[in-house]
């Protein structure tokens, strides 16, 4: 399964209403950090599960859902985590 598919599968746990994942790996090819093979992604999630949570806590939820994907498949992840009301 490709990394974007794995990410989508993991983040289904957050019951997102909106889910956008941009793979920006190509922009980073060749820089030192990309040597490990991990991808660069930009994620936008809208979920009711973010209600009443600080940004820090929202990012923690995303990282927890991603689990060990953060250690290998993903080198960099930019997160925008919103509630439906914040759209």
């Amino acid at each position, binding site marked *: 399964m490709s990394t974007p598919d794995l990410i989508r599968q993991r983040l289904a746990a957050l019951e997102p209403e909106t889910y956008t994942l941009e793979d920006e790996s190509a922009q980073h090819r060749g820089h030192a950090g990309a040597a490990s093979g991990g991808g660069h992604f930009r994620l936008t999630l809208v979920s009711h599960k973010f209600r009443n949570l600080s*940004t820090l806590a929202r990012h923690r939820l995303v990282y927890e859902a991603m689990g060990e994907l953060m250690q290998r498949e993903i080198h960099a992840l930019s997160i925008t985590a919103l509630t439906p009301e914040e759209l």
Partner: protein
Amino acid sequence: MTPLDRIRDQVTNNTVVLYMKGTPQFPQCGFSSRAAQVLQACGVKDFLAVSVLADPEIFENLKYYANWPTFPQLYVKGELIGGSDIMIEMYQKGEIQKLLEEAQAA
């Protein structure tokens, strides 16, 4: 001293600590660069910048300290504030300026 003890020492003995890839002058990653820029835009001159690339022990162990898997990481008064996305979001809302000002005044 274990790596986690060293991290605890750094974040408790310095008001503002930024763990990053490279240095504020020569950042080695776009996220770290933006994090350092936020601190500079807030007028924070006196912060400890730790390059995780120059310290393999900290590179390996920082993720366990506050259970946060990515770099950069900003600590203010020993507490994890977040990575570069959170720093930029707080900057846009004017929150991080206030937080840093209060921390440095204390």
